């Protein structure tokens, strides 16, 4: 009897010892920064020993959970079953019209009714979430499809916002004519950035795009005559709605629908793009540059279109942003913003449209609803980013690979494939 129990006990003891060690390690690690608080004015030191105890107590159970989840992830025995279960549900939702139809209708009703059901504040939050959906989808073209790591995406966002703000300030141009102009200008900047970085690959590209983003921000911050410097531009007009004099609340609702329509438009275009000739060229370029060139794909043009088309969406959203806040300054366009947009793309699941939407909702709504934790929200935010990546490295929604099956039903599609390939 004892022989049977003892391995179990031994294992339990070793687990406890392991957790104790981890907890001691974290107590050691956090000791100076958590416990000792220097008061520089009076040159005194506060010792906060209770914090150390809390860390020890909190880390001990967490380390069990961590090891359990890690083991589950590595061996994946239970997870395999779960994966297939998730996949089954996903497939069912996608393919079965009887389920997906009503679900989509329900979603559409909810989305349309949203601003009437919730407060103006909630609508504002949803507007920014939807804006980030668009930014994510735009960056997804560059990073997810074409595989070009862009850390300066916020620059195009800034270009869009400043083009509307400046055109409005100097020439009184309204939102509607400024929208395509801002997007166009952003696309031009996309190409301008694209040219010098064509030869770079991987992480060299990342740092140059990061530098480009910073340059744009710094120029906006320091070129007072052009951009009014750090004080920014105020009093940008809101979108025009058939000359009607809207109240602030009505404006929010109106803006919500503008963004909603733009998001719908974006999803439509991105979805079509992905299956188009150029979209498949992007994916091919991402997978293998050399093979891609050997197949006769023009590398320069393909990369430049990716940059330009990706930047276009940022331009759109920039205009919307300027119209939403009616005040912009360079502080809204820091590197952190680029990092958040990139996180939306990767966290949601690269290359997948639903993934980007989910990612944007998580990353934008999470800090908003974490306001209850007030000062801890960014801490929790950073930690969740790490944890989501550690436990779901492929993103929340895994991108669905396109399969082409042989068979009678698919033969028409196959034919289309071949035509497109040979064209």
């Amino acid at each position, binding site marked *: 009897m004892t022989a049977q129990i003892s391995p179990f006990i031994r294992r339990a003891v070793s687990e406890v010892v392991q957790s104790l060690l981890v907890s001691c390690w974290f107590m050691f690690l956090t000791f100076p*920064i958590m416990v000792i608080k220097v008061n520089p004015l009076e040159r005194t030191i506060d010792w906060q020993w209770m914090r150390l105890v809390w860390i020890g107590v909190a880390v001990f159970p967490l380390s069990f959970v961590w090891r359990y989840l890690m083991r589950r992830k590595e061996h994946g025995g239970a997870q395999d079953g779960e994966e297939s279960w998730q996949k089954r549900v996903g497939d069912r939702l996608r393919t079965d019209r009887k389920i997906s139809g009503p679900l989509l209708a329900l979603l559409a009703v909810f989305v349309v009714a949203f601003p009437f059901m919730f407060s103006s504040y909630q609508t504002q939050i949803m507007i920014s979430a939807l804006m980030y959906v668009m930014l994510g989808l735009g960056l997804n073209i560059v990073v997810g499809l074409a595989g070009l790591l862009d850390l300066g995406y916020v620059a195009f966002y800034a270009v869009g916002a400043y083009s509307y703000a400046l055109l409005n300030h100097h020439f009184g141009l309204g939102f509607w004519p400024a929208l395509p102009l801002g997007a166009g200008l952003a696309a031009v900047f996309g190409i301008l950035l694209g040219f010098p970085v064509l030869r770079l690959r991987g992480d060299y590209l990342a*740092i140059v795009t990061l530098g480009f983003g910073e340059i744009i921000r710094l120029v906006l911050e320091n070129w007072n005559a052009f951009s009014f410097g750090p004080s920014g531009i105020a009093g940008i007009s809101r979108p025009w709605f058939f000359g009607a004099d809207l109240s602030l609340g009505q404006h929010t609702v109106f803006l919500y629908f503008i963004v909603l329509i733009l998001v719908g438009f974006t999803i439509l275009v991105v979805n079509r793009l992905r299956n188009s000739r150029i979209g498949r060229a992007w994916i091919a370029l991402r997978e293998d*540059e050399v093979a891609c060139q050997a197949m006769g794909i023009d590398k320069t043009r393909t990369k430049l279109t990716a940059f330009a088309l990706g930047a276009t969406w940022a331009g759109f959203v920039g205009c919307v942003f300027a119209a939403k806040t009616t005040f912009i300054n360079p502080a809204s366009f820091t590197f952190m913003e680029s990092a958040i947009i*990139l996180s939306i793309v990767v966290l949601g699941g690269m290359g997948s449209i639903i993934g980007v939407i989910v990612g944007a909702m998580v990353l934008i709504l999470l800090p908003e609803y974490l306001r209850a934790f007030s*000062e801890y929200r*960014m*801490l929790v935010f*950073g930690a969740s*980013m790490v944890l989501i990546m*550690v436990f779901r490295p492929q993103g929340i929604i895994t991108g669905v690979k396109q399969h082409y099956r042989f068979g009678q039903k698919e033969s028409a599609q196959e034919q289309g494939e071949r035509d497109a390939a040979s064209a």
Partner: protein
Amino acid sequence: MDYFLELFFGGLTRGSIYALIALGYTMVYGIIELINFAHGEIYMIGAFTALIAASALSLLGLNGPALLILAGLIAVIYSAAYGYTIEKIAYKPLRKAQRLSPLISAIGMSIFLQNYVLLAQTSDFLSFPTLVDEFAFMEPVSHIMRSSELLIVATTLVCTVLLTLFIKFSRTGKAMRATAQDKTMAMLLGININRVISVTFIIGSGLAAIGGVLISNHIGQINFYIGFIAGIKAFTAAVLGGIGSIPGAVLGGLILGWTESFATGYVSSDYEDVFAFGLLVFILIFRPAGILGRSSTDKV
């Protein structure tokens, strides 16, 4: 002439700090091809630990060089411990994942660490105690170069030489080079990859902490946000010199430091960073793999 020399040494100091941080970036990148965005935060934690240790120790009556060395040592140990732990938590589970996942994890870690220090300590600037007095022999040239600057340049030089020797001749150094070249092959030859990666993070973090202590001692104040800008600049320096190359990181750091210093001195301090990034773009157009980086050809 004096103005020129002042700018020259100012740039040298700045460049040395960038070089110290860039070494960590370049080593980590060389081995696991990850832009470790949390590296700047390690530098910040090093500076904070040194400040805390120095304050606590000065209550015990320590001062002078002993205080600097002891506080610096504690900072290095703690930063190395942080680097080690961060790798274990945020990067090791992602070693087989797609390339962008660890990058996002690193960004998350960077946000977490910034806010951790912000909450545990303060969001204000803290004044850093002066740990070194002006050296007497530096008196005649003190208008050109301060003693703390000399200390920074000398320490960087020593660290770089030691690191180069370590990587060139020690067993671990050889294992590191082998891992950087071909991870699978290194594993087949019996190199413990996990250990090599841990050592890389520990050394890189230690160097960043040295940089953090020295620059805080020089400038005299720190806050939780210093790591972010320094990290980006150091990464720029690493790429400029050719990422993965140790002399490249030092050279890149120095070039970046001088560019910023002279641009500030002769043109305008507002556009300092514009010059830095402009230079980066310019150099990468002509040498896409950095100054000392070897451009690799794709084997088909």
